[in-house]
């Protein structure tokens, strides 16, 4: 994790603005889905990307793979400018970067047998064919923990966890260096989640693959990732080692995300932090200044007008907050509602941790 070798994936000032509205009522605007993101992923590293729905994390994953074209910014993969590639060059690069979907059942063609699904990337990239192809598919299936007999079956004959294994086998078929995993375990049952997480780690160790692991579940990210980037409304607001972000979240949004995470045991449920008021604003109407100020318990006048840059506050720790140091030192400028709150009323009987949600901005 030392910064000596150049990163495998290097994202700079990446942005994707979609046109919004325009339709029936003639309203128009820009959805700033991704709005100026810098991110590095080093070889063999697992980087977590977390945020609420609407934060832009899925769009960012697609942009990095150039499955959608960015509005501006750059993506370099192993030193190559991904956005300048055309045709065959791009196809060759695609061999090295793959995607694992959240919903494997809709990502796998229901009319194809597993043999074809897993073999398809090998045929497209002209890696193998004929009997060699069959042997390779069998090997891939066994690598993800499926029996060779799976080859002649269709996706619907498998459980959710097994389908995710097929999706992983398909992504790994071309031996990529980098895989974007978009919420790969969110739709799975608890016991199956653990199996897939372990499988991803095993494959990463064996083949030295780097993952960009998109998730909303902080406990999975905390277990799995080397580094974590937290996204809010199209921007990365905090970035650091998974350990340091978990132990000492610096951005008020990150703190709120951890506070909102449901506990792993009833003991933990008794100590909770003040919740995050409101819901994520619409990316069509990004707030002025710091885009988090509308929900931030510490927001000061400066936050309403001045957009905070993502700055390094200690080696490897980046945060986009004017007040990060003051908040970390426990003396935020405004006396907010933040901090550990013992729920009143004995045990977990206490209720109403703070303000009601107000989401007027998200609708329409």
């Amino acid at each position, binding site marked *: 994790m030392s910064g000596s070798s150049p990163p495998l994936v290097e994202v700079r000032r990446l942005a994707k603005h979609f046109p919004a509205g325009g339709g029936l009522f003639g309203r128009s605007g820009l959805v700033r889905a991704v709005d100026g993101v810098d991110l590095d992923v080093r070889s063999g590293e697992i980087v977590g990307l977390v945020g*609420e*729905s609407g934060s832009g994390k899925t769009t960012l994953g697609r942009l990095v793979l150039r499955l959608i074209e960015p509005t501006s910014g750059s993506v370099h993969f192993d030193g190559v400018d991904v956005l300048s590639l055309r045709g065959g060059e791009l196809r060759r690069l695609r061999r090295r970067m793959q995607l694992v979907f959240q919903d494997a059942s809709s990502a796998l063609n229901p009319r194809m047998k597993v043999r074809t699904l897993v073999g398809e990337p090998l045929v497209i990239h002209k890696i193998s064919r004929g009997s060699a192809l069959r042997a390779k598919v069998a090997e891939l299936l066994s690598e993800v923990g499926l029996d060779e007999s799976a080859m002649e079956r269709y996706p619907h004959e498998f*459980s*959710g966890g*097994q389908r995710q294994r097929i999706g992983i086998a398909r992504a790994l078929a071309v031996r990529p260096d980098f895989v974007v995993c978009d919420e790969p375990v969110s739709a799975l*049952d*608890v*016991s*199956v*989640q*653990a*199996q897939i*997480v*372990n499988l*991803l*780690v*095993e494959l990463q160790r064996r083949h030295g693959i780097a993952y960009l692991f998109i998730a*909303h*579940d*902080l*406990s*999975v990210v*905390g*277990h*799995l990732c080397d580094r974590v980037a937290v996204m809010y409304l199209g921007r990365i607001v905090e970035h650091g080692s998974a*350990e340091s972000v*978990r132990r000492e979240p610096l951005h008020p949004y990150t703190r*709120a*995300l951890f*506070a*909102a*995470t*449901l*506990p*792993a*045991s*009833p*003991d*933990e*449920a008794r100590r*909770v932090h003040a*919740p*995050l008021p409101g*819901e*994520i604003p619409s990316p069509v109407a990004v707030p002025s200044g710091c885009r988090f100020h509308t929900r931030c318990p510490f927001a000061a006048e400066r936050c309403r007008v001045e957009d905070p840059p993502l700055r390094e506050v200690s080696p490897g720790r980046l945060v986009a907050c004017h007040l990060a140091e003051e908040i970390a030192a426990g003396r935020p400028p405004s006396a907010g509602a933040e901090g550990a709150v013992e729920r009143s*009323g004995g*045990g*977990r*009987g206490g*209720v*109403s*941790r703070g303000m*009601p*949600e*107000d*989401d*007027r901005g*998200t*609708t*329409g």
Partner: protein
Amino acid sequence: MVRPMSAAPLLEVRGLTVEFRRDDGVVRAAERLSFRVDRGEIVGLVGESGSGKSATALSLLRLVPPPGRIVSGTVTLEGKELLSLPEKELRRHRGAGIAYIPQEPGSALNPVLRVGAQIVDVVRAHRSVTRAEAWREATLALERVGIPDPTSRVREYPHQFSGGMKQRALIAMALAARPKVLLADEPTTALDTTLQAGIVDLLRSLVVGGDLGAMLIITHDLGVVAAVCDRVIVMYAGRIVEEAPVDTLFADPRHPYTRALIESLPRPDVERGCLPTISGQVPDLARLPSGCPFHPRCGLADERCPAWEPELFPLPDGRRVACIVEEDRRGAREPELAR
């Protein structure tokens, strides 16, 4: 919070068996389930997909859709048996006796009716009040579930509500019938992490505040259970495998399945890639293993398990566990307490 077992339960389920007819035979989504929900209690019904928890919930109101069928059992609410009632009479108890919040807040609201109008329908279906009075009640209901500016929001349409607000509106709608028991099916699953905590707090406040007599939450999420439930019923393959107060369940799970489930939660202190897992997968109900349905995946299973017909052993602290191996171990540990 363990309550004295003497008082009559608010809701009591006995011997509930639910079958589904499928192409490949008849499967049992619920097998002789018995449990109770006491006044002031929040009970969690926990299981993975295919455990039969949703079919069980729907059966309590005789709403299990065909080809599902309630084969036997009773559901008693405040001393009144519901499953044998004629449809017309049972309808009065749906909503006012037991209210149900479905899984998907997005699709549960009528998109072409104002949110308030949908609550008004519920109010007027259960009580004879004027339309104006019903609208006032609808506004109050929205306020009670924490929707800001309820007087204007009551006139809005569902699409103007975000996901979290829709879930709150559904809870308001359920409350409008003034139910004794609320049945919430995966109330947080469709929501972002940041909104889940708010909904969980709201649900808890409704029982603590006396708006509801009790609540049964159906969920696969152990986080929800830890945050809100008093007592937990764990289901596997259509059967109850363990029942315990929430603290005891997390601190000292007794059924091997419960234990494995809790251990498999991802944690930062477990070495990466070494999460404990349950081998294999949840069995298809049409091809259940013989004896204890968990035995092929169980680390404790011995030669008896494939032939042992599961029964729930009561433990001295009010718990119940359906494991013959665990029962033996306990008997050896606490000889004077074992049956």
